[in-house]
């Protein structure tokens, strides 16, 4: 069944931000990560995407009962949109389509879905922040991927685009795909699970390991 995260421990800058997280997500499910700034939402998404170090624990993916290689089935959309300002919108997407094995015509369809087809021939440098974000998200629609990892996808999106994004997430779930999304706003996703991450509390023992700090704060 889907994505299984087992007693996962992650750290950032030498400090544990996620300690022994265990959560499972069935195929067709959506998991919304919530938590204050610094609670480890991005760290968790990057670790699942294979961009971060895993201190302990495992992340495993099973599709249709078979173990699957995580790296081949994820689409990651982080804080940055991976858009080259010198290329046109269509050129930007065409590259990602060829790289991820998108079907012919996928680029036009994705541009239309995201409402970018009218400005497809403009250089991406002329895009507004919201348009650039929509272009970054259009990447997800190019080729089917079992697991979407979205880090604050609604930043700089207007209300209509946010609703469109929620629609695409619902469509991904309907196809049997999974979505992990870190967000601060309510996307009104039906049947979404929620995971509240707590910001790491500074343990009393943290400083004691360092003789210099312990004498300074002693």
């Amino acid at each position, binding site marked *: 069944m889907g994505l299984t995260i087992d007693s996962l421990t992650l750290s950032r800058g030498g400090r544990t931000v996620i300690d022994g997280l265990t959560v499972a997500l069935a195929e067709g499910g959506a998991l919304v990560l919530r938590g204050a700034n610094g609670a480890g939402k991005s760290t968790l998404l990057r670790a699942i*995407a294979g*961009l971060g*170090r895993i201190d302990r624990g495992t992340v495993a993916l099973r599709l249709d009962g078979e173990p699957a290689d995580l790296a081949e089935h*994820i689409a990651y959309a982080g804080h940055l949109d991976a858009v080259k300002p010198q*290329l046109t919108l269509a050129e930007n997407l065409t590259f990602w389509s060829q790289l991820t*094995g998108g079907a012919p015509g996928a680029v036009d369809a994705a541009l239309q879905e995201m409402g970018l087809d009218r400005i497809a021939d403009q250089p991406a440098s002329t895009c507004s922040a919201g348009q650039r974000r929509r272009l970054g998200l259009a990447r997800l629609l190019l080729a089917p991927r079992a697991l979407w990892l979205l880090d604050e996808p609604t930043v700089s999106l207007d209300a209509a685009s946010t609703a469109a994004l929620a629609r695409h997430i619902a469509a991904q779930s309907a196809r049997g795909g999974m979505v992990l999304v870190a967000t601060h706003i309510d996307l009104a996703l039906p049947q979404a699970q929620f995971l509240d991450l707590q910001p790491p509390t500074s343990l009393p023992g943290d400083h004691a390991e360092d003789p210099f700090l312990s004498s300074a704060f002693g």
Partner: protein
Amino acid sequence: MQGLSSLMVRELSLAVRAGGGAGLGLGFFLIAILLMPLGIGPDMGLLARAAPGMLWIAALLAALLSLDRLFQADYEDGTLDVLATAPLPLEAIAAVKAAAHWLTTGVPLIVAAPVLAVGLGLPTPAQIWLLAALTLGTPALSFIGAIGAALTVGLRRGGLILSLLVLPFYIPTLIFGARAVDLAARGAEPLPMILLLGALTLLSLVLGPVASAAALRINLR
């Protein structure tokens, strides 16, 4: 395979568009060589003798000039994150990017060098060897440089550290490359030097992508 060829096409088209810096290395190379006679004086004998070394040193510095943007630009706009999660080995991505750097920086130097060599009065038999040495040697500049570019990818103003990091590793290429042309200019046999130069380039072609990918993985974490 299609993914890699489209990455190559994109690298080349980004290099020739505004701010890509494809002509930067060539421009630097031309100006640096044109400054030499002004600094050294119009002694043709001296210029001809110094020409192999001057051409090679200028080529090293020109290759270095656009190296710091090799991975940095992709790191800053998030492209590197998505490339690293794409269904392609990071080693292959690093190799394609280094090869694109050679095509946009190294190849223009190879084309321009014989013209400049004539201007500096390099003896005619040595000119074909200059061409051979640069063709065999400049790929090493891009592939060794890629390791340095990958190591410094997260650093602000990493270009300066990159120069200090990479230039020492250019020394063998410089020695064999300049020596081959120098030997040919004196009428000696340059082939052993050319072969050593080719061996160095082969080594860098193998080690460069692997080491760059390892460095990128560390920096993405």
